[in-house]
């Protein structure tokens, strides 16, 4: 997809303040007694790729629909390009949206469909035809110009939907699970194309997904949502390495979550008593250190747990291996924990396998490997 934006140039912020494409200020949306979005605040910088990640029903799609103007929030403000648009209808907002099932108009040909946005902008007929032609060519769907959506494949529909949304060069493109309807084999290619397209055009993408692989490989900023709230937002690395809450840690693949109480406060670390033993966890980098006896949770990444124990692996635990799985280049060992949960231990697949199912192994990790979560594990993040 060699889509080139010919009119949009990188706009240098006029003032010293960085320019925001989108800002949400404690947006709240209720349906009757059900709160779909609860105090969501978010800042999207110019040309950023943001992924809203969370399980189904977490409020990510409702948040997106509020940005599009398809839902009106009960509370809070929405600013697009610094302009307050909270009460504006969708057709007055500088956005475009790609729907989960692409929402192609069944009665329009591909060319008509893609030109629809320009028609709405009252562009002259000749200009529309020329621009449609150009965009169809760059999206490699020029041969489909006279076809109707019913006769297109999933991948073709996805391209048409993208071309239709991109042709008006909006400030923000909203994507609601845009590749969820595609064959698994197509997804990776399309993901890469979309990422390159986003970087080339400088249009901000807000991408809603429940698939963490999508979120972590695409997003400049990943926003993890659960129960209508933002649990954590930050660059992918930060969320992978320092999950802020027990939910984020358990939602993100490869974390082992432990819950317990603070038994002892050491210099720079805490000793946490859990049902499967006492472990040393570093103090949180930000926020207050929990008090003695407080209920806390922490997580340890599966690749930081090892069976090759040395003196520095101060946290130790004996468990029985129940299964070995392969995730791409990673070999994952599943262990049964005494508290009924599982412990995951990852090794590179290239290394020789040392642990077989049924084997009881002593495992350990260093004092620095654990990440203490904010807030109490049951009540979610602090407001």
């Amino acid at each position: 997809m060699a889509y080139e934006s010919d009119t949009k140039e990188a706009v240098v912020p006029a003032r010293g303040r960085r320019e925001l494409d989108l800002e949400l200020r404690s947006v709240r949306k209720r349906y009757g007694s059900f709160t779909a979005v609860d105090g969501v605040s978010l800042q999207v910088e110019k040309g950023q790729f943001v992924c809203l990640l969370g399980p189904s029903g977490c409020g990510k799609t409702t948040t997106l629909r509020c940005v599009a103007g398809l839902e009106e929030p009960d509370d809070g403000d929405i600013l697009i390009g610094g302009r307050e648009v909270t009460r504006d209808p969708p057709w007055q907002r500088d956005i475009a949206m790609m729907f989960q099932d692409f929402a192609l108009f069944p009665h329009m040909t591909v060319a008509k469909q893609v030109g629809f946005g320009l028609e709405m902008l009252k562009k002259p007929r000749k200009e529309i035809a020329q621009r449609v032609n150009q965009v169809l060519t760059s999206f490699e769907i020029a041969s489909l110009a006279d076809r109707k959506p019913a006769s297109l494949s999933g991948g073709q529909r996805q391209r048409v939907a993208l071309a239709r949304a991109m042709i008006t060069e909006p400030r923000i493109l909203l994507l609601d699970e845009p590749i969820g309807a595609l064959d698994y084999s197509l997804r990776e290619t399309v993901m890469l194309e979309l990422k390159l397209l986003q970087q080339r055009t400088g249009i901000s993408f807000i991408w809603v997904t429940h698939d963490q692989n999508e979120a972590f490989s695409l997003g400049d900023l990943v926003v993890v949502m659960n129960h209508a709230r933002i649990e954590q937002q930050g660059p992918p690395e930060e969320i992978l390495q320092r999950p802020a809450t027990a939910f984020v840690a358990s939602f993100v693949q490869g974390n082992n979550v432990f819950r317990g109480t603070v038994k002892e406060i050491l210099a720079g670390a805490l000793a946490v008593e859990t049902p499967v033993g006492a472990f040393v966890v570093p103090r949180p980098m930000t926020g207050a250190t929990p008090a003695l006896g407080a209920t806390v949770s922490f997580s340890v990444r599966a690749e930081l747990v090892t069976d090759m124990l040395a003196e520095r692996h101060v946290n130790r635990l004996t468990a029985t291996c129940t299964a070995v799985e392969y995730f791409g280049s990673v070999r994952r060992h599943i262990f049964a924990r005494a508290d009924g949960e599982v412990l995951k231990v990852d090794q590179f697949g290239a290394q020789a396998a040392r642990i077989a199912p049924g084997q009881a192994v002593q495992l350990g990790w260093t004092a620095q490997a654990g990440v203490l979560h904010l807030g109490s594990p049951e009540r979610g993040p602090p407001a």
Partner: protein
Amino acid sequence: MSTIRVRSPASYWLAVPAALWMLGVVVVPIVLLVWVSFWGGRAFSTASPLTTDNYARFFANPTYVKLVFSTILHTLSLMVVTGVLGYCIAYFLTMKVKSPLWRTALFLAFIIPFWTSTLIRAIAWVPFLGVNGVINQTLMFLGATQSPIEAFLYSRTGITMAQVSLYTMMAAGPVVYMLNSIAPQWREAAMTLKATPFTVFWRIVFPLTLPGVVIGQVLVFLNVMSDFATVATIGGNKHALLPNLVLLFYESSQLRAASVVAVLLMICMLVGVVIALRVVDIRRLGAER
């Protein structure tokens, strides 16, 4: 699970009962009707010579010819009124009524009158339209008029009013069906592409419901063209349309003249349906998804 394949012998056998039935009640009577309309001579027998005299006699009478045109005109005006009203009702029911309970209640309120026969419903209009009828009394009570309006009963206006009430739901029903098949995200997608609600309607909703509109119009067209009962009850003896002429000839035992009018009526209806099919391919109803 076993399935019957297209063009397998079983599928033909399954079509036999319906085919026999249609042959007996539709095809044979129509052939007879057309045959009788060409009978010459005076005797009513199968030995009659075939001529076009009956048709010549019909077209020689300007009153009859005018009746053909006034029937078509009347039907067209009814199609316009029921089409607009029916679309509004369908749109209101599917798009504006959000609560499923209310939607069902309103839909039943529209549908239940159809459980009585058309003739009864036509007759039911008489006490409404008369000089001392409900409408006139209401108008006078409201002070909208001093003396009762006589134009309602035994007039073209009255016939139109009654027929609008009888046939509007026929125009609305298929539109309700088509509106229900419009995915909300099509309208939302149009809105995010900067289309105002009016444009969304004209560019997305209306074109997608067009097959429903056409089917509704065909239903109204066929029913109004063949409706002699309403015309007879509301119009009294003063007004007649083509189907009433069939009845008139039939009752005076002029079976050949009655067949001629019936054949002409059928031709008009056939032409109307063919035109409708040209506008929208209703066989592909809802197929484009």
